[in-house]
């Protein structure tokens, strides 16, 4: 891109640490690039993955989320939730081909004005290097990521992470944290692929081949996911177009 690209960046700051840190940067006159647009929430744990994606879909080039350091959270452990959620969103962005770096998560305390300014400078530069997002080109994958972020299954797994890996499940077993992460990653992939197909079918029935072309997923993969969608009553077979089966969305 040209040298004049000035990214526009959506930034979430939690009230107690990072917003205070940003204010301290101001009080101390630490300068940073004027590209961020801040939304204050009481806790970074309020930031819903769907809000992050909505930011990218509506025209921001990237999203930064700042929270308290672990252990400093005013709400005890809100930032642990944030960390897991943002990690998942980054995974989904990677699956979508947009790349994880459009979302950045950092911890800044109320005393770290300089660090806040440094992070914003560094991350703004990073977005600049990534270039404009041009959300219109990523309409389908972003819609799919948004849908995946809304998927009850992913949200459930995300929410149960600590319960299952640090405490125990109803069978009094504690799950291995790494194994759980693998599971979450796999799930994210399946949910994303399904969401992609649902989004592809939004404007009318399509054949498997059409969908493969539209989404970039291999034909076999499309078939598998359509199978899942059929099973859960989200899509069904409309007809055959030549040898290729044509699917449509079921009304919710």
């Amino acid at each position, binding site marked *: 891109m040209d040298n004049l690209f000035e990214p526009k960046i959506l930034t979430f700051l939690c009230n107690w640490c990072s917003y205070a840190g940003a204010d301290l940067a101001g009080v101390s006159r630490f300068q940073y690039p004027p590209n961020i647009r801040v*939304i204050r929430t009481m806790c970074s744990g309020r930031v819903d993955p769907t809000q992050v994606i909505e930011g990218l879909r509506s025209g*921001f080039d990237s999203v930064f989320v700042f929270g308290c350091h672990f252990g400093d959270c005013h709400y005890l452990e809100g930032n642990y939730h944030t960390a897991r959620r943002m990690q998942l969103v980054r995974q989904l962005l990677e699956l979508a081909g947009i790349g994880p770096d459009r979302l950045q998560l950092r911890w800044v305390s109320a005393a770290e004005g300089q660090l806040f300014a440094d992070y914003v400078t560094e991350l703004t530069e990073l977005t600049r290097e990534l270039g404009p997002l041009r959300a219109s080109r990523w309409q389908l994958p972003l819609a799919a990521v948004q849908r995946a972020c809304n998927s009850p299954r992913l949200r459930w797994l995300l929410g149960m992470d600590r319960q299952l890996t640090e405490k125990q499940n109803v069978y009094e077993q504690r799950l291995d944290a790494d194994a759980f992460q693998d599971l979450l990653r796999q799930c994210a992939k399946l949910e994303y692929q399904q969401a992609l197909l649902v989004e592809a079918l939004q404007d009318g029935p399509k054949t498997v081949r059409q969908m493969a072309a539209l989404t970039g997923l291999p034909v076999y993969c499309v078939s598998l996911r359509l199978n899942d969608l059929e099973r859960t009553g989200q899509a069904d077979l409309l007809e055959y177009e030549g040898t290729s089966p044509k699917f449509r969305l079921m009304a919710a």
Partner: protein
Amino acid sequence: MSAEIIDFSKKSGGIGNSHPQGAVLVVGGGIAGVQAALDLANTGFFVYLVENSPAIGGVMAQLDKTFPTNDCSMCILSPKLVECGRHLNIQLLTMAEVEALAGKAGNFTVTVRQRPRYVALEKCIACGVCAEKCPYQVDDEFNQGLNKRKAAYVKYPQAVPLKYAIDPERCIYFKPDKHGKIGRCRACEKFCPAGAVDFEQVGQEHKLDVGAVILAPGFKAYDPTHYESYGYGKFKNVITSLEFERILSASGPYEGHLVRPSDHQPPRKIAWLQCVGSRDTRPGTHGYCSGVCCMYAIKEAVIAQEHAGPDLETAIFFMDMRTYGKDFERYYNRAREEAGVRFIRSRIHSISLADPASQDLRLEWVAENGDKGNELFNLVVLSIGLEVGDNLRRLAQKLGVALDADGFVQTGSFAPVATSQPGIYVCGAMSGPKDIPYSVMEASAAAAASASLLSPARQTLVKEKIYPPETPVADQEPRIGVFVCHCGVNIAGVVDVPAVRDYAQTLPHVAYVADNLFSCSEDTQKSIVQAVQEHQLNRVVVAACTPRTHEPLFQETMRAAGLNPYLFEFANIRDQDSWVHQQEPERATEKAKDLVRMAVAKAALLEPLQPVHLEISQHALVIGGGLAGMNAALNLADQGLFTYLVEQKEELGGHARKVSHTWKGEAVGAYIDDLSQRVLNHDCIEVLTGAEISQVSGFVGNFETTVQCDGRERQLQHGVAILATGAHSLQPEEYLYGQNDRVSRWHDLEKRFAEQPQLLEEAESIAFIQCVGSREPRRPYCSKICCSASVAQAIALKQRQPELNVYILYRDLRTYGRREELYRRARELGVLFIRYHRENKPIVESTMINGREKLLITVKDHILDRDLKIPVDYLNLATAIIPRGLDTLAKFFKVPLNHDGFFLEAHMKLRPVDFATDGVFVCGLAHYPKPIEESIAQAQAAAARAASVLTKGYVEVEPIVSVVDEDLCIGCGLCEASCAFRAIRLIQVPGKGYRAENITASCKGCGVCAAACPQRAIDMIHFRDRQILAAIHAGAQAQAV
């Protein structure tokens, strides 16, 4: 043993006059003073908070991180300071000192002298122009003189009040010219955009009528120049621990870069020298242990390594490692094992300059076994102790408060916050060295003591604001007023304010726009009210400094204008715009427009919210009838609050009945008898002994507890609960305990000799073994009270029978704080102290010597480096204090336990008696092992915190809570699992199965549940999804030119 037994517990009760004043004077604006002020102001008393410097915050504001949680000190302190600064019932008197006191408890008149600040508080907008223009640089004492500030200055960036001051000692204006005339310079006055500088200001004298006084003036850091051989002040790289805190701090002189003063280069090797000014007998030093330095040195070493990475070498030179507090020993172990901090047991004699060019320093030492050590360090930190400054001694004199030989305020164990003067209380380091949580605890205890003294006058002097009725706006189209602030030149110097104002006019729903020179000024508030009324505005957006400091002000203005305060939105165009984009005015203006557009978009969707008032039961429940429980119940009852006291056993008193004397020598038995009588006879206490709790339900304000008592079941309704269930001591399986009758533990030895004095007369030698079951891998914590207990017993034995051989086998002798006096006395009396290692424990065998039955102890002496064989007649074991099984109680009240099984409080530093679950408090040994005076202080603190809930009569909850859409909710329970405050739960809804329900009284408003809900059935009021999305969409929109 001690010459004079102090007991102020009785004296402080009586009030000379039955009409006491409902106001309290708190001296000192550090964390203790702030806590005491908040506790009192929140329970119906008016507070004058007198602070000597221009801002509150004290030493805690100077610290970088706090042990043992590594919390950022400023982050956890700052909300308390802000709350204090804007509390309607706390009047801050900064730059002020107490001059005189007249009257008596309940009715004092205090004279306070306030020095001129030369800056009008009500005008100063803290823009900093005065400091920028001030030509005179002086050492910045907040940063320990490591950098410079101006003569016009603010104490620190987060100061409360955030107001500048002019230092008359340094300011050029006050320096006479050659003709002896003053009045030169005046740069600050000329440039101040708010006209706040006022050289005509004079000092003021206030006469304040108060019922009680709380002393919380803190401590003075020891001045290490007394140690000439350490070269402090001569060698640039020998610094104090407080200087090191400032170096580590991100807002410190080096912006958080760990560099040394001489060359501003990062050090590769840092040494800490412990006990500088403490545990010393030389002139100019102190005999007592300062109690906090071991932990802060470890913390500084750990944090230094976090800053500099694993290549940094750290070493701590110490005598005894005193990590006696909750989670301290774990912190010590981690520092040693994970962070690789070296611990060297040696007192350094002197520091020498290794090389003038590098300014590196050489330390030489002799290790315990006689080996000599010699190393270079780039930086040496002196762990300086705490002492009482001369000004505090004078203050005590003015008030007639008795001090001990070290200058600390004298207190007794049974009334730990009462001074020799009835109605004057003390908390924090003025009555002995102590750390932050203990100071906070005492502050709450002092508030409780004052509140019980003045309880008839509660609510008599507090102020309440009256507002016009709220205009209903729910059905109206949004009509938004946008007010853009110049903030003098702070915003307008960078951002084109009129352009932002005009731009705002073009936004949807905006009905009125204005720009103001200072939006926070009194007259702007009036003009906002006027605009709201004239233009029928129903939402307001202010684009100005930051909501963190000014949102409450504008919300007040909203209420004055008859609007709901939640119909307000802030656009931060100063702290996060004009101040950080000073070189890019055009883009800063563009950003300001975007931020205003986002704020307007959100404002259009704001809803009026009402604070939720929940009626509560004003009764308290105290569980546990030991020393702590009884004290908590008694204090609540003395404050007029009815209290149930539930005890499992048939008799009140608990473990304290086994203790004969406190470490200060006060008789415990008589005190406990008296205390239980007072509890049993109190009109406001119902004691249930032999009682067992079988069920608990409800939440803050409305608990219901089922108690089985006397074969029947009772339902107790209560608003708060205090858990004071105590602890046990370990029955060990080592050192022949339980096998040989001559081996006993804790107070059994005293009891044996009290019952059979001839046994002591016949005895030749007695030994104590410390840390039995404590500081072990299985139980990695210090039981805190055992060293003092054994040393005190040893002293008593030596005094009764000087020729008796008394041995104490220990690992680190932890007679912390002023208990060091015991250690010194024991050594003088000839008690022999032998140190052993955990890997090489003493061996105890039964044996016969000259036909007498003896115990033979084999222990390796580390100084002689060989095994000693010590025959003794009796062995007493200081066994670990272990938690009772607290699981059931923890589940009943939904409160957590720590890894050792003790209750885990809401915050280890600043909320030492609260749980994260509202309305439940903890005190005594159930929290952690602690001595009697600390248990009592904690009990009184718990009572103060509980009273702050009960005396209101209702629970007010900020309406920023989550809401559940019952139709969308499927009852999966993920929200319940995600909530750290147990503020959301599943309930059965007829015909629907389970549905989530928000418990408004417990909800803190973080929004974690809303972002977790798989069904998107939860929303967060005031931060609703649609409100956030509206701001996102508005922000993404391109500006119409």
